[in-house]
């Protein structure tokens, strides 16, 4: 019996960026996190970023698992603390590009304090926040991003407390780059990520992403495909919209686009310039990590 030769399929260009030995991943059918990772990798494909010098830091939650699937230096940290871990990594090893990739609950509830302080300092961190409007890993509890009038496992009669408007919060705290897209806007999202990677300072991209299993099911909002149709129907691209006006509701308009793109000196530049001025020749600048 002759051996049948399988046709050679050109490998998917994103594969080399993934830990394919860890597939299948844990995400549910219809989940948008995989789409965001695809956009992330495509953004890297088209950028000049040195991948050896790129680290991904995640917290805990569904999006927190991204760090485990990208074939880069990747750190799956504790709940809410991806940003302070990334802060240490970046300051110790200033040539690294450090991407914080985590979810809305991780970054804005338990980790909210760290996020606003990193934005205030204008640390050179690239924050990608996948917002599925819910705590998904733990079974669909209310998040600080859950809009009003939504059923969650801890709000069985519906939510009533106001949600954070993430772009508004990040702009107020000092981010130099703020954008929002949905997982329907894959081309715009990849382009936006590329733009953020090339900009020094604290950048923030919010990505609205479906959670069919724990958000949509309880709220009779259909499956992953229905979420795409919903995003397509209600999203409006309005670059430069004042962030105060981009708050989200359960079924209302989703304003997407680039909202903030401004210049502020980043933390490391400010620190180095300040010490140079104050200490002159006595100042020893950290170029590379020294470990003796």
């Amino acid at each position, binding site marked *: 019996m002759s051996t049948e030769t399988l046709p050679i399929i050109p490998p998917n260009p994103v594969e080399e960026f993934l830990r394919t030995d860890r597939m299948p991943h844990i995400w549910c059918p219809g989940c948008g996190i995989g789409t965001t990772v695809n956009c992330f990798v495509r953004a890297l494909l088209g950028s000049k970023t040195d991948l050896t010098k790129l680290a991904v830091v995640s917290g805990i939650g569904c999006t927190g698992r991204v*760090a485990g699937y990208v074939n880069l230096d990747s750190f*799956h940290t*504790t709940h809410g*603390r991806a940003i302070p871990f990334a802060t*240490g990594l970046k300051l*110790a*090893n200033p040539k*690294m590009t450090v991407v914080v990739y985590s979810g809305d609950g991780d970054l804005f509830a338990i980790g909210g304090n760290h996020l606003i302080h990193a934005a205030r300092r204008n640390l050179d961190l690239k924050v990608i926040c996948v917002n599925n409007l819910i705590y998904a890993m733990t079974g669909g509890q209310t998040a600080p991003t859950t809009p009003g009038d939504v059923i969650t496992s801890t709000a069985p009669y519906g939510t009533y407390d106001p949600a954070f408007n993430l772009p508004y919060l990040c702009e107020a705290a000092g981010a130099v780059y703020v954008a929002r897209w949905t997982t329907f806007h894959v081309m715009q999202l990849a382009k936006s990520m590329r733009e953020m990677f090339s900009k020094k300072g604290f950048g923030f991209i919010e990505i609205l992403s479906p959670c069919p299993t724990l958000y949509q099911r309880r709220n009779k909002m259909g499956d992953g495909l229905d979420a795409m149709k919903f995003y397509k129907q209600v999203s409006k691209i309005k670059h430069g919209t004042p962030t105060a006006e981009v708050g989200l509701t359960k079924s209302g308009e989703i304003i997407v686009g680039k909202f903030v793109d401004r210049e502020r000196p980043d933390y490391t530049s400010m620190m180095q310039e300040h010490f140079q001025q104050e200490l002159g020749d006595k100042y020893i600048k950290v170029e590379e990590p020294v*470990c003796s």
Partner: protein
Amino acid sequence: MHADPTGVLTGSHFMDGDHACCEGALAAGARFAAGYPITPSTEVVERFSQRAPKVGGTFIQMEDELAASITILGAVWGGVKAFTVTSGPGFSLMMEHIGYAVMTETPCVFINVQRGGPSTGLPTLPGQADMMQARWGSHGDYEIIALCPNSPQECFELTVKAFNLSEKYRLPVFVMLDEVVGHMTEKVVIPAADQIEVEPRHFTTKDPESFRLFQPCGEEQTPEMARAGDGYHLHVTGLTHDERGYPNMTPPMQDKLVKRLCTKIRDNVSKITITDQHEVEGADVVVVSYGITSRVAERAISLAKQKGIKVGSLRLITAWPFPDHVIKAIAPNVKGLVVPELNLGQMVREVERAAAGRCRVLHVPHAGGTVHDPQVILKAIQEVAR
């Protein structure tokens, strides 16, 4: 390996324990600290913030202790030696990252200048009541190392030692001083750099294809280290993981990993532990103490000797791992052990456990806020000697 002279302030100094800890960290090669102000520990990072820019180091004041305790771990994976400093309430906030450092085998140092607790307690006054928290404060099974200086000179020496042990065994090491030692000013002699032994970070020399981040190596069964940015595509997680660092949440992997995290210390207890013994041979009573309490015990011991009591002293320089073997060797030969400490009963439980009924163990408790009256320790010595 010898210390890098850049960070070594060689000479004779008149300095307090907090400042001496900072000089110890610099001598050990620490070039990164993150902290959040808290009395009575703040002077350590105040000094570091002044010294760091002149030695190629970085200091960042974080928004809280949760942040500080993981910022240092990010810095370690970035490729430097790093530490943080705190006291009781901040130490409580740092517990999660002690567990993360243990699980990810991140070498790092935590300095805790103990004050009276619980809660806000006595911010400016001494205590020794975080000893069990240092050992057991984070969740899960694990081992750590804790050192207890009793003078500014030892603050310097034991901070260097703490960094060395953290690199050797790949875990968080604690320097557990207290407010009195932290604020006590004495002579501190810092040797020349070539007289200070420093454990280098054991970076792997393997290529990225053959390197496994958590593969046990050498006698201590600790993995080799790598840093971000060198092409190893590291994956580090607090989840139960295999030798590649990939999550593997199965009972056999849990068994293998957690047992190794513990045995790397448990199998080396006699190598790690340091005690200071005086006149234990032939003694009827031995005073077991650590940190500032050992200085007070010295007075009580000398008063007891004047009364003709055969009394020796055992000072625990390493509180954790606990030197069971030392207590086991002493217990059958004495009437009893006297254990003064600035808490209502912490290390005494270890002494009792190791003595296992072979001699009397008398605790001399103190809720903290000041040191013991030596007369109280003397009374306990007299009672045991009777």
